[in-house]
């Protein structure tokens, strides 16, 4: 497991590193420490990592620009910051967790459990997904996403096309499991490869040979997995 820590104060960096190594000892962690995000940049672009533990001064505008940049990447980001008042905003942009300083060993364990067990982020308050397009970071509002389709290690965000200028599909670097962890409850994993915004569903269709699909407002149909059928039926009756 590859972990990158970005923290400028040596003692705090030492603390994060020490505790992470202890907590994840079974996972054979490889921990790389950097004292600011610029120094970490080239490492992140050349290596595949599992999680970024990031201390960011989120008070300035630059902090959030950097954060959005990281959130477009394939790995999850956990913020460790003294600026606790920025937590809500950070969650909206799609961080997996926000650990306020000072933090205990237990709090760090909780964050890693969330990461390792694909447990959903308890706030589930993401409002945007960052995507990198032609080198630029673009924020996609969750309101515009109809459904999300897995494509290997990547995912396609299928958007409600309002104008012709706006593309209907955007590629995201995170896999569908990681994205699911961040999204609010209304997004349901209806299939191994599909996440659907239930508010955009028009009808539940049953096809021959016990095949099920969801008809969306846009006219598109999304397959429903066999195992998900019962759960979904219950959910839909509630709508």
């Amino acid at each position, binding site marked *: 497991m590859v972990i990158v820590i970005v923290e*400028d*104060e*040596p*003692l*705090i960096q*030492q*603390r994060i590193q*020490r505790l992470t190594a202890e907590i994840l000892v079974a996972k054979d962690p490889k921990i790389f420490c950097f*004292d*600011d995000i610029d120094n970490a940049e080239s490492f992140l672009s050349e290596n595949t990592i599992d999680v970024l533990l990031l201390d960011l001064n989120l*008070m300035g505008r630059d902090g959030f620009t950097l954060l959005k940049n990281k959130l477009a990447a394939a790995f999850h980001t956990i913020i460790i910051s*003294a*600026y*606790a008042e920025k937590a809500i905003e950070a969650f909206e942009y799609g961080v997996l967790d926000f650990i*306020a*300083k*000072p*933090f*205990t060993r237990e709090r760090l364990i909780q964050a890693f459990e969330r990461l390792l067990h694909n447990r959903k982020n308890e706030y589930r308050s993401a409002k945007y997904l960052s995507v990198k397009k032609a080198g630029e970071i673009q924020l996609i509002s969750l309101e515009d996403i109809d459904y999300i389709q897995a494509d290997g290690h990547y995912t396609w965000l299928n958007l409600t096309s309002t104008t012709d200028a706006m593309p209907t599909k955007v590629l995201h670097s995170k896999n569908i499991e990681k994205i699911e962890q961040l999204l609010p409850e209304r997004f349901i994993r209806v299939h191994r490869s599909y996440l659907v915004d239930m508010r955009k569903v028009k009808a539940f269709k049953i096809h021959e040979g016990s095949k099920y699909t969801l008809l969306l407002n846009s006219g598109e149909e999304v397959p429903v997995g066999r195992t998900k059928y019962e759960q979904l039926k219950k959910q839909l009756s509630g709508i």
Partner: protein
Amino acid sequence: MRQHKPIIFLLHVALIIFFALPAWSQNNNSADTEHRPSVPNNVFTQIQIRPIKSNEFNTSIQCHASGVDQGDWQNISFSELPQNQFFCLRAKINIHRETLSSNPSLLVGMLGSVDFRWDYKPLISNGSPAPSFNDEDPGTIKTLVRLSDDLLNDGEHMLSATISTFSVGKELDSIGYVLAIVDEPKLANVVLFVSMLSAFFIGVLVILFVIFQLVNWLYQAEKSYQMFSILCLSAALLLSVEQAKFWLDYPYNWHALRLSVIFVLTFITSFLLPMFYVAYFRLKQVKIWVTCSLISLIIISLLNLSYDITSVALFFAALCWSLIINILQVRESGRGKAASLFIIIGIGFIIFYPEYFVEFGFAVFFIAIVLTMLVALIKEMRQHKARSLKAERIKTELLRRNMQPHFLMNCLTQLMELIETNPQDALVLISALSQEFRQLTQQSEQDYVPLADEIALCRNHIQIMSIRYQKDYRLAVVGEVEGIWIPSAILHSLVENCFTHNKISSDRTFELKVRQAGKRVNLTLITPIENKTNHQGTGSGNHFIHAKLAELNQKQAEFASYESDDNWVSQISYVNINATAN
């Protein structure tokens, strides 16, 4: 301030009208005179003089006799009276009783001793004329005598006089000002009106002088207040001396002295006006402005013009310099628009009606300029208030900055780590933190603290930062610290600033150089820089220092900072204050 603009505009319009009116009425009058009959009634005509020959001295002087040799008499106008002479004067007047006012009086304004006769009979003496300077008893500048009815029957009359003018003391353009029959109560009214008006202006100026002295000494020391105050005083003096001719009937030999005093006061006022603007806009090239305006004024003074023209020219130069300063300021910062407009009006007035400017326009104009200054100064005061409020806010902010959640949370995180790994260091950090909080809380209450205390505070902060960043930062002090006081928390804020803008990744030494020159203290603090992209010297730390120095009434304090290689150099210079007197 926007709401004051219409008022200022109206004021300008009113002033233009005020200035234009006398000129306009003057034009009307001159048009009237053209229609008058060729032999005017009640006006002295055929003014003639004749030098008194030395052989007359011993016998009786025949100025008033009708039978004197006509060839000796020479026609002149009254303004051409000769200086340093002993002579006879005679003038004819054609009295037309009905057109004369009810209380006719003879008004003579001239520099000389004189013995008047009306129709060869003694009328009045003002001083005693004599053939030489030593024998002359100088008269006053004004002669006013009631002409009784029996002197004023219709027809031609003769005013004759023996005059000596040895005591003028200086070559003047003219020593004869007025010779006329006037209505005495009317004249008294005019004199009263003019005196009241000038007394009003003088009073206003004196009050402004006193107010701004008090403001300067008791509220906030400021060069521009001081300049403004002195400007008001010199203008008040100038106006008093200038208007003295209306209400003070002084001996004519004082006249040259009075003119010299007017000249000196005009010179001073003309110099102070541009200098006020230099101080007000806090211009840097003070020496250049002083030299330029002084040179121009001195050149004008040396031109050997008449007193009146010199005064006008001096004011003209003063207005031109003020205008240049204001216009440069308008271009640079947008300030000084009203003043510029106003000065232009003043300059226009001088060009078109120079004679009124010296008499009275000057006073009105000056009061009006004073008003724009007053508006500007009140604005300034408001800024001062805002600035000291800001200083207060920054002071609490400074205190809070180190007690900020962010700072505190980071320190607490480090303490957690130290407690688990190195409890001994945790104790050191806790002591240093508590020491810093205690000292900051105490010092933020004080205006000045001993430099040694401030250095201790900085060292403490540097120690905290050394632990935080696991480096060995140090503060080296060069120079004698004893007996020096410093506005509290200034150095601390610079050191703090260095850490907020910088990540210092090696063991670096901060350096403080202390130099004392007389009462002045010069401090140079050199702090390391590593990431140059970050802005320094524009943040709240610098605002705090400027605000603090202003708040403490440090008149000539200077604070500058700049980058030098991989250091940030901050220089502070201020007047040392023995705070035991605080």
